[in-house]
Structures are given as C-alpha cells and as structure tokens.
C-alpha cells in the first residue's frame, strides 16, 4: 500500500480529522509526498534514515482519553503513556502541584493551532510530515509558575505492529524547575514517530533525559522542538541503546536574552542498525549559550549519522556556541557520517566545532593493558572515559547507573 492509500483508508481516525486547516495541511503533505529514488537520495530527512521505516501498514487502536490517578508516596510524578496517550498518572496530587496533564483531542483548538504553526519549520522533513499526516495521539503537560517537579514518562504500546504518530506539548511557565526522564523500552514490533514541543518561559529550567532501549523491530523516530525564552535553560541528553533503527532530531530556539540550550547524545550501534541523529540550535537573541555534543560507538555493519547546526542571527551578539561530534568504530564495516555546520550572521560571537571518528585509541588501550587489565576490561573503561564529559554533566545517579549497566551489557552482547 502507498502512503496515499493508507491515508485514504484511515483518515477519519486521525487526530484533528474534522479540522479544515489540518485537512488542508494533510492534503498538501500528501500532494508533495514524493519518495522517488532522487528524493530519497537528496532529501536530508531521508538520506540517513533506515528506508524500512517508510514500509509500514497503519494500525492504531483508538483508546479512551481517560487518565487514572494514583498516589504511591514517591516524590516523582510518574506518567504512563500507552499507545501515545497518557493512561495513568501517579503522585500528582501529593503536593498540590500546579500541573495539568491531558490527552489531546479534536476539541483542543489552541493545541491544534500550535501544531500548525510549528509545521512551517519542517516542510521538507518527510518523517515530520508523516507525523502530521497520520497524527493519532498526543498529550499536553502544563507546569505552573515557580513549580519544581520531577516527571518520569514511560512509553509503551499495547499491541504488536502498532504505528504511533504522536505530538506532545510541554509548557513550563516562568521560573519553573523541571526534571523530565523519558523512557522507551519497547519490545513489540512497531513504529513510533513522536514529536515533543517544549516551551520554556522566562527563568524556567528543564533537564530532559531520554532513555531509548527498544528491541530490534521497534523503530523510533524522536523529535523535539524547544523554544527558550529569557534566562531559561534547556538541557537534553538522549541515551540511545536501542537495537532498532532510530532517528533523533532535536531542535532548540533561543529566543530570549541569556537563554541556554544543550543537546547531547550518546548512541551504540551494532548489526545492521541505522542511527540517524541531528541537532540544531538557533540563536535569535543576544548573550545566549549553546552546546551540541553527540558521541557514539558502532560495530558490525551499523551506520550512524550526526548533522549538527548552529545558526546565529545578526541580532544574536555575544553568542557562545559549541559543537562536538565523536565516533568510535569497532569494525571495518561500521560507518559514521558527521557533518557539523555553523551559520553565523553576527560579528561578536564565540563559536566552535570539532569532529573525530576512528577506532579505539591504541595508545590508551596499551596503557591500561600494560597495568594488567585485560582487553575487555580496558575497552570498557575507555568507552566510559569516551562518554565521560557528557555523563559527568548528568545529576541523576539512577540515570548514570543505567548508562554504566547498559554500556557494559552492550559490550558483552557484542563480544567486545
């Protein structure tokens, strides 16, 4: 079945299916949805993507928007997302948080407008167009002024071969401090295409840790788009240890003075995995700071790409922006494509980028082995050392332990 056939067959089940504006957008997307070999080769959203991601049969179980609420005396707000919708929330009432969590339905016109406004940034991105075309789920989280909250979001699906096309909206009002841990541990064959829009009001701070550990056939395309206003701080780390093909595209817009954003990523790839990474930070205000760091380890025939971009507008003087891309290749057939890009239109900025790709440093390995550690122990230490600068910025001990556990597991599973 073609994408057009799938759309026509299921169009009444999509979110905002009764909206004229959304229908018009969907028709535009469909009219321009050209997957010819030339487009697949040249379009940036397709050329680093696992092509199998586009071969799917649409299947979505329409479930209720009702959310069950529970308290279990923990400090963290625990949100269970099943099939793209919030099904349960724990501990929200404990401290009378000024917090609001809802599933999005067709009547939510403000959200619909926001989604349509965001669309203009992604017109050439086939995965995001597919997300808008087949949109079937999503939720909104609104965090009030001065709130300090820890949120844990676990994503899962209820049946095999489901296709989740989800858009979420997270709004953090002035001076809120929010820690979000998002977890994907899916073992059913599925395709998950998820877009998070995050809005940081003045003085708010968000730390967003994303743990991805999907099994072989559970593909994930994760996108985030963050707007950072004056004095706000957004810090994201994607730890991708999935065995499936994955896409992580994350964008931040610094739109107020003294805002900062960091988009970091760690990924491991083996077998025939295809890992498509992209980050972009747009500096649209003066005195903002940004950092983009992605590091990965690949073996077997695994392929990965990382495109990073810093865009500094003319108004964004005193910008400080940093980009780093590093890859370790453990086999002759693994492949890492890195493309750092700086586009600077202001004249008083500090911007830099660096990129290295290669095998494990033989001199480092020799040093550790010359102290009696075997090759496996030494490699494990060097891999932790490789990621150290990114991991040492994480304040969550459980997340760090998870990183150590899964990186060792990955090394064992791949006989390294």
């Amino acid at each position, binding site marked *: 079945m073609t994408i057009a056939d799938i759309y026509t067959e299921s169009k009444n089940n999509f979110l905002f299916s009764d909206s004229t504006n959304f229908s018009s957008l969907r028709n535009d997307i469909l009219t321009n949805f050209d997957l010819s070999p030339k487009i697949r080769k040249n379009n940036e959203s397709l050329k680093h993507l696992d092509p199998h991601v586009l071969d799917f049969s649409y299947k979505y179980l329409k479930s209720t928007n009702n959310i069950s609420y529970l308290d279990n005396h923990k400090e963290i707000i625990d949100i269970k997302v099943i099939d793209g919708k919030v099904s349960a929330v724990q501990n929200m009432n404990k401290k009378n948080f000024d917090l609001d969590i809802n599933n999005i339905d067709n009547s939510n016109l403000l959200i619909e407008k926001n989604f349509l406004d965001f669309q203009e940034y992604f017109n050439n991105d086939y995965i995001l167009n597919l997300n808008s075309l087949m949109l079937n789920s999503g939720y909104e989280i609104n965090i009030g002024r001065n709130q300090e909250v820890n949120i844990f979001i676990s994503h899962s699906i209820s049946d095999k071969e489901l296709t989740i096309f989800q858009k979420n909206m997270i709004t953090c009002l002035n001076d809120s401090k929010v820690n979000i841990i998002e977890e994907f541990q899916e073992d059913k064959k599925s395709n998950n295409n998820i877009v998070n829009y995050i809005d940081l009001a003045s003085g708010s701070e968000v730390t967003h840790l994303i743990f991805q550990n999907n099994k072989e056939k559970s593909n994930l395309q994760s996108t985030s788009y963050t707007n950072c206003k004056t004095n706000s701080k957004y810090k994201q780390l994607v730890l991708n240890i999935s065995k499936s093909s994955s896409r992580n595209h994350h964008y931040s817009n610094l739109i107020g003075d003294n805002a900062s954003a960091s988009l970091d990523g760690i990924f491991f790839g083996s077998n025939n995995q295809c890992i498509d990474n992209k980050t972009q930070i747009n500096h649209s205000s003066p005195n903002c700071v940004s950092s983009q760091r992605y590091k990965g380890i690949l073996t077997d025939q695994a392929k990965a790409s990382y495109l990073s971009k810093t865009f500094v507008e003319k108004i964004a003087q005193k910008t400080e922006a940093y980009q780093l891309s590093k890859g370790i290749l453990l086999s002759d057939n693994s492949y890492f494509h890195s493309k750092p890009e700086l586009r600077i239109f202001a004249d008083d900025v500090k911007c830099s980028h660096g990129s290295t790709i290669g095998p494990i440093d033989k001199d480092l390995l020799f*040093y*550790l*082995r010359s102290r009696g550690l*075997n090759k496996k122990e030494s490699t494990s230490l*060097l891999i932790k050392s490789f990621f150290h600068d990114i991991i040492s910025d994480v304040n969550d001990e459980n997340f760090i332990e998870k990183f150590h556990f899964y990186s060792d597991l990955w090394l064992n599973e791949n006989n390294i």
Partner: protein
Amino acid sequence: MFLSIKNLSVAIDDKKILDNFSLEMNKGEVHAIMGPNGCGKSTLSNVLAGKEEYEILGGEIIFKDHKLFDLNIEERSQLGIFLAFQYPIEIPGVNITPFLKASLNSKLKKEGKPEVDALSFAKELKKVASELGIKTEMLSRSVNEGFSGGEKKRYEILQMSILKPSLAILDETDSGLDVDAFKTVTQGVNRIKNDQNSFLIITHYQKLLDHIIPDFIHVMKDGKIIKSGDKSIAEQIEEHGYKNI
C-alpha cells in the same frame, strides 16, 4: 637468567629500529640505557611491555623462563613487567583508585593470591602516596587528567610502588622534572629496590644515575648496544656527548 634478550630485531612502518639487540639482566640488578634520540630506547621499552604495532623481525626475549612473545600485554604485566611511560596518557573518567586496585588485583589473581578489598587498598594507597610526597587529593582524580608533567611522572612511580613489579622499565621518567618530582622518582625506585627485582632505566642524564646507582650502563646507537660498562660511561657522556663512544 632473569631477563635475556637475544638478537632482537624490530621494525615499525618498514623501518628497522632494533637491530640484533642483545641484553642480559640478573635478578636484583639495575641497568641503565643511554643513547642519542632515535636510537631505539623507547622501542625497546615498548616491545618489552608488549606494544602491538611493532614487527618482530627476529630474536627472542626470555623473562622468568617465559618466552615474552607468547604473552600479550596484560600477561606480561601480570608476570611482573612494569613500564613507566615517557608520556603518560590522560584517561578522563577513569578514577585512579579503583583503576589501580583492579590493576593490582589482576596481578594477585594471576599469582593465586587473595584479591585486596577496597578499604585496605585505599589505606595502603594513601600510605604509599604520603611516603612519596603525593597529595591525597590526587587519588580521587581521573588517571593523569589535568596533571602537570611532574605529577604524571610521580603517578607512574606511585603505580610502580603499588604493583611492586619484578622488572620495572623507566622510560625517561626523569625528563622534565622539577627538584621535588625528581626526588619522588628516585626515592620511589630506591624504596622498592631489592635483590628480587630489577630495573631498566632509560635516561639522558647522569644526574638520575647519581641517585639510582646502576650496576651496568649500556650505550645504544642505531638499534644496538655499542658499549657497556660501569657508571664512568655516564660521566664520559655528560662531558663529551656520544661522539667518542
């Protein structure tokens, strides 16, 4: 024989570095190797420690009745070979104390001895560091990360003091040291030196050999030993260079 190197020829990138090199050492001896830059001193150290990118063209090395070329890098270390690196490498995120404990335990395990626990190891490490004038705060840092040149060399000596090797190779450990770091190095060697272990000291300077008295000095040129003798050779080199050797 404790260490016997016979007719060793080694190349890297098709360039011969060691050419029929031979050397014999007994237990408890200190041998110094001097020689101009590029004569093959560091290659010799690296080959003894097992660095893999060298091509062995011929010859053999026997250490404590083991053919060294049959052993990999870590097996040589576990057998008692320790190389103090000329340029110790920084490894961010690998903390000194657990790293060194793992290193010692790999050796103890090989020797069939019980492994050391974290608490008693930390105590011992602190004691040895203090004896060598190394600040305790250094022990909570990552391996060589942000260390000055002198600190890196001191840390090599601390590792040597903990691992108590039977053959320690010091590859220009004295180069670029201030007075205090120099003292740490010489004290460190003299502290563990006994009739059961041997030292192979590679240096450019007589000064080190005034503090660690060698039993033999060998002069290397073009990948082989061209002269061997006592401490007077070092004085001759200090005065006239390598021209008349």
